[in-house]
C-alpha cells in the first residue's frame, strides 16, 4: 500500500519532468500558460515558420504594429507595394504609410479604403484590414493591405466597356467592331437588326453580304476576295462606298459603307470600326430633288416661252398700248392663277369644278351669271395651265363682247365624260348678250384657244358664233398617254 501511494505521489512529478524534458529536447513547439483571461498558447521559437512562409508568399501586403502604432514587421509584398525595403519600413508609424485619412480597425471586421504612399511619390489605392489582438500578453495590431489598382482598372475598363456599349446601342447607324481577322466582336442594335442572325463572331462578309451601288465602286469591292475584304475592312480606312445588302429583306435599301482602324493605347491597330449608314431616304430625296429641278427648269422655260409668245401676239392684236396692257395683264394673270393652283395642289392636279370656280372668280361665277354643271373630274397638273388660259380667253371675251357684257347675260358651262372616261367634252354657252353680227371676230383669243386645245390638250375646239351668243365646245384627253413631249402650243407664234 505504501508503495502504491508512493507511486501515486510520484506520478505528477514524472509528468512535470516529462514536460520539461520534452521542452528541453525541442519536442514541443508551444506551451499553454495561464493568462488573465484563461489559458494562452505561447509559440516557442521556430514554431510559426510555416505561417511566416505563408505570409511572405501572400499576394497581399501584411504588417504588424506594436501598441504604439509603430511597424514591427512587414512582409515582402508590402515592400513591393510601397517601393521601400523592410528596414526602411520597420520603426515607422502606421500613419506615415498613407496619404490622406489613416485607416482604423472597424467594428464589423471589414476592410476600409486608403491611399498607400509609394516611394516614387505616387499613391496606390489599397483596401486595409486591421485587427488588434493580444499575443503573449502583448497587444499588437495585424494589418493586411490589398492592392486595389488592378480591381479599379478592371472597374474602369468595365465602365468604359459599358459606356462604349451604350454608345453602340444608341447609334442610329449599324456599327460593328472587327478583330484583325475580320470577325465581328461587337455590334450595335441597328447592326443586329440588319443581319439575318446575330453578327457577333461572324466574318463581316458573312453577316453583311454586299453589292456595290455603282459600277466604279463595284471595282472597289470586287478588287477584294471575300476573305481579303474582311481583312481590308479590319485594317484599312474605307470611306463612302455605296452598297446594297444581298439580304432580300433589305432590297431597295442603300447603305454607305465606311470603316476606320481601331487603335489601342499603344497606337497599335487592333481591328476596325465599320459603319453601314442607311442612306435610302437620303438617296430618294436626292433623286426626287434632281427630278424636281429638271421639271422646274422645263416648266420655267415653258412659262418664259408662253409669256414671250403671249406678249408678242397681244402686242400684234392690240389697237393701243392701254389695250395691250389690259389684255396682256389679264392673260399673265391667268397664267399666275394656274400656277397658284398647281403650287397649292403640289402639282398633283385639281377637280375640274374647282378649277372653273377659281379661274372664273373675277367674272362673277358665284353671283349667278355663270352656272357650272358636270360630273366630278380630277384634272392632271399638265392640263391646268392650258385650260386656265382657254377659260380666261372665253371669259374675257364674254365680259367684253358677249353675255357677261350685258346686264342679264348668262354663261352656262356644262361637261360630260366620253370615250370611256378618257376624254372630256365641255360646252361654253352664252345667252342674253348683245346679238352677234356676221361670223364673229377671230382675233388672237380665238387663235389661242384653238392652238392650245389642239396641241396642249390633245383635243379640238369648236367655236360657233350664233346670233344669240357664242357656243364653244372643247373636247380633250384627260390622260397624257398619247401626248408627245412638246413646247406648249400657246407659246407657238402664229403664222
Amino acid at each position, binding site marked *: 500500500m505504501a508503495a502504491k501511494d508512493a507511486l501515486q505521489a510520484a506520478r505528477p512529478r514524472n509528468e512535470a519532468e516529462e*514536460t520539461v524534458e520534452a521542452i528541453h*529536447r525541442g*519536442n514541443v513547439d508551444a*506551451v*499553454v500558460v495561464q493568462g488573465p483571461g*484563461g489559458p494562452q498558447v505561447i509559440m516557442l521559437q521556430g*514554431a510559426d515558420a510555416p505561417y511566416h512562409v505563408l505570409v511572405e508568399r501572400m499576394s497581399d501586403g501584411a504588417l504588424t504594429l506594436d501598441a504604439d502604432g509603430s511597424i514591427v514587421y512587414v512582409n515582402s509584398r508590402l515592400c513591393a507595394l510601397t517601393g521601400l525595403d523592410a528596414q526602411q519600413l520597420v520603426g515607422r508609424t502606421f500613419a506615415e504609410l498613407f496619404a490622406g485619412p489613416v485607416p482604423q480597425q472597424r467594428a464589423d471586421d471589414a476592410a476600409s479604403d486608403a491611399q498607400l504612399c509609394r516611394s516614387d511619390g505616387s499613391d496606390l489605392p489599397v483596401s486595409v484590414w486591421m485587427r488588434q489582438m493580444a499575443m503573449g500578453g502583448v497587444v499588437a495590431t495585424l494589418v493586411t493591405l490589398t492592392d486595389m489598382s488592378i480591381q479599379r482598372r478592371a472597374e474602369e475598363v468595365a465602365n468604359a466597356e459599358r459606356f462604349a456599349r451604350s454608345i453602340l446601342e444608341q447609334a442610329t447607324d449599324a456599327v460593328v467592331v472587327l478583330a484583325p481577322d475580320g470577325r465581328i466582336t461587337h455590334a450595335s442594335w441597328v447592326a443586329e437588326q440588319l443581319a439575318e442572325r446575330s453578327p457577333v463572331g461572324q466574318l463581316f462578309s458573312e453577316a453583311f453580304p454586299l453589292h456595290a451601288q455603282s459600277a466604279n465602286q463595284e471595282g472597289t469591292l470586287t478588287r477584294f476576295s471575300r476573305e481579303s475584304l474582311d481583312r481590308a475592312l479590319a485594317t484599312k480606312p474605307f470611306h463612302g462606298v455605296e452598297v446594297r445588302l444581298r439580304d432580300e429583306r433589305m432590297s431597295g435599301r442603300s447603305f454607305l459603307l465606311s470603316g476606320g482602324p481601331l487603335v489601342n493605347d499603344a497606337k497599335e491597330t487592333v481591328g476596325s470600326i465599320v459603319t453601314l449608314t442607311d442612306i435610302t431616304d437620303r438617296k430618294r430625296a436626292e433623286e426626287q430633288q434632281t427630278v424636281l429641278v429638271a421639271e422646274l427648269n422645263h416648266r420655267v422655260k415653258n412659262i418664259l416661252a408662253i409669256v414671250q409668245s403671249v406678249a408678242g401676239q397681244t402686242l400684234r392684236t392690240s389697237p393701243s398700248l392701254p389695250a395691250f396692257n389690259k389684255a396682256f395683264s389679264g392673260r399673265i394673270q391667268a397664267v399666275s392663277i394656274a400656277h397658284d393652283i398647281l403650287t397649292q395642289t403640289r402639282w398633283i392636279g385639281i377637280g375640274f369644278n374647282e378649277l372653273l370656280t377659281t379661274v372664273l372668280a373675277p367674272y362673277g361665277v358665284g353671283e349667278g351669271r355663270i352656272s357650272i354643271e358636270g360630273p366630278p373630274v380630277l384634272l392632271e397638273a399638265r392640263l391646268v395651265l392650258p385650260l386656265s388660259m382657254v377659260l380666261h380667253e372665253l371669259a374675257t371675251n364674254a365680259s367684253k363682247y358677249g353675255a357677261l357684257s350685258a346686264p342679264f347675260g348668262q354663261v352656262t358651262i356644262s361637261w360630260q365624260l366620253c370615250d370611256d372616261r378618257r376624254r372630256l367634252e365641255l360646252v361654253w354657252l352664252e345667252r342674253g348678250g348683245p346679238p352677234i353680227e356676221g361670223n364673229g371676230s377671230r382675233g388672237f383669243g380665238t387663235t389661242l384657244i384653238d392652238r392650245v386645245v389642239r396641241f396642249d390638250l390633245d383635243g379640238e375646239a369648236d367655236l360657233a358664233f350664233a346670233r344669240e351668243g357664242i357656243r364653244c365646245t372643247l373636247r380633250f384627253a384627260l390622260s397624257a398617254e398619247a401626248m408627245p413631249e412638246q413646247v406648249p402650243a400657246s407659246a407657238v407664234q402664229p403664222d
Partner: protein
Amino acid sequence: MTATAMEQDGYNLRLYVAGQTPKSLAALANLKKLCETHLPGRYTIEVIDLMKDPALAQRDQIVAIPTLIRQLPEPLKRIIGDLSNAEKVLVGLDIAPS
C-alpha cells in the same frame, strides 16, 4: 467495430496541437502511422487545435503542445512531444508491438 468491442479493445486517443506548427504536424503524422501499424481498426483520433480555442487546454490540463492523451482504455495516459520515438509511444500507450 461495435461499441462493446471498442470498449474492450479500442483506443480512444486525443491529440492536442497548436495550428500547423511543425511538431503538431509531425505528431499527427507519426500517430496515424503508428495506429495503422499496431491498432488497425481499433482506434479513434480526435485532434484539438488550441490555437482556435485555448480554453480546451483545461480539460486535460495541457501545458505543452503537442500532447497525446489516451482516453481509453483506462487509465488515462499522456505523451508529450512529436511522437517520433515509436517505441516510447508504444510503451506509453501500453500497446504490445505486433
